[in-house]
């Protein structure tokens, strides 16, 4: 049994990277699902995965897809009015094909580039608070001092930053290749 931190790390490493694919897969297979409903299926799937015994899950990716499929199936069966095409789609949901087994992990460079790319889209204060927190290891209190704002405002900025980053992470990274960044130096070599 893993402790909570270890389980969260496992979740981050083994489950979260598959979310963009899962969303694409859900969105493509089930025409009746609006994007909001995809959110709900993903949240429900995560809840189930979280309470499952992580050690026993051989392929988190397949487990995630199958769980999501179950959830969609349950809800379709439960609802009284079901569009015909949705029922038809449910059959195709049963096919867990190669696309599920195909997954390439992002390299460290790509992961960083992606995070930087997302950070560019954050509002300035939000981004500053986030960078002080995550790149400089500041406590919220120190961020508040440094930025000259209330600690509660710092928490709001950070929550918003996390929400925006998490929103962006729902999509697969866009063109990781052009994510090169200006290197900023504070000193000069000979």
């Amino acid at each position, binding site marked *: 049994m893993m402790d909570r*931190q*270890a389980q*969260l*790390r496992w*979740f*981050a*490493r083994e489950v*979260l990277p598959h979310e963009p694919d899962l969303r694409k897969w859900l969105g493509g297979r089930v025409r*009746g*699902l*609006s994007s*909001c*409903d*995809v*959110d*709900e*299926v*993903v*949240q*429900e799937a*995560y*809840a*189930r995965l*979280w309470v499952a015994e992580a050690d026993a899950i051989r392929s988190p990716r397949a487990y995630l897809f199958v769980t999501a499929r179950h*959830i969609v199936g349950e*809800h379709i069966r439960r609802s*009284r*009015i079901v569009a015909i095409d*949705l029922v038809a789609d449910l059959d195709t949901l049963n096919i867990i094909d190669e696309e599920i087994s195909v997954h390439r992990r992002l390299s*460290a*460079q790509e*992961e*960083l580039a992606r*995070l930087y790319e997302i950070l560019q889209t954050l509002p300035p204060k939000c981004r*500053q608070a986030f*960078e002080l927190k*995550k*790149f*400089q*290891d500041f*406590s*919220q209190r*120190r961020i508040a001092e440094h930025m000259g704002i209330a600690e509660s405002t710092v*928490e709001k900025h950070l*929550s*918003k930053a*996390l*929400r925006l*980053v*998490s*929103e962006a*992470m729902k999509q697969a990274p866009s063109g990781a290749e052009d994510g090169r960044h200006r*290197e*900023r*130096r*504070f*000193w*000069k*070599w*000979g």
Partner: protein
Amino acid sequence: MEDIVSAGSGNGAEIDARASAWAVRSAERPLDPVEQCELDAWLEEDSRHLGAFVRAEALWLDIDRIAALDSGTRRETPPPARQHRWQSYAMAASIAVAMVGGMIAYDRLAGRIATERSEVRRIALDDGSVVTLNGDSAIQVRYSADSRQIILRRGEASFKVAHNAQRPFVVSADGLKVRAVGTEFAVGIEESGIEVTVEEGVVAVGDGANASAQPRYIRRNEQFVAAETGPRKVVLDAADVERRTAWRKGLLVFDGQQLGAAAAEVNRYSDLRVVIEDPTLARAEFMGIFKLGDARAFAGAAARAFNGEVIRRGDELILVRQQNSPSH
């Protein structure tokens, strides 16, 4: 089309927003009992809340890992000013030998160690090397089979490196790479640049972004400064070096320094700030020995020494002379 997933409380986006807020707060500090109840109640309401919450928590935690992949060259926000570090050392304390606290283990998974302002911490690494982290500093430890890498993210750290020629010990700070095999040295990210001070042995300092540049060798009792105006090498005497790396020993000793300068030194390590508004008092010569971070003891001792008193105002300890005038 009817909502095929039962219409629970709130839509996906609203749930994500609340989940993010809870994840940020619970990562910052333990929740108080009222908050814990509130969170538990919210999680009970709908299993989707749990799903969103663990997602937010996992992501928030994982960003630390991603941030750690950054070797410091891409930092966008400059560290806060720690002005005139060496100057203040030179004029202020000579420091007595005493260690505060013992060795602590670090989080092996994340390899991150950060100190609060009032804290100096010694950390034993797996290979037998020892890192001492100054107040308000952070490092990242990345050990592999063939290298020992430390990233200094902010502040200052000193290293006593266990000898192992097969696994070079490399400290990077803002793109500067300091390579050592077995030696003692300190690296600090200062307002004015990056400073490398060598106490024992030799280190090679190189430009991390330009591997072909010739490294510079810095020897015992030498200091290298990579600054905006270009690099320079400073030769120090042994006493200088001792003073400059003396924060590791955990005590501040004042031996006739001006009270104002002494207070500034004390304040570097304390969340409570000692403030002296009276210029005459600030120039008074002061003697005393204090634990790093103990601003209260310092203010109390100074008040006793100069027949003054300490007034607490928020995070400030204001040192004033006792008023003789009864009209006041």
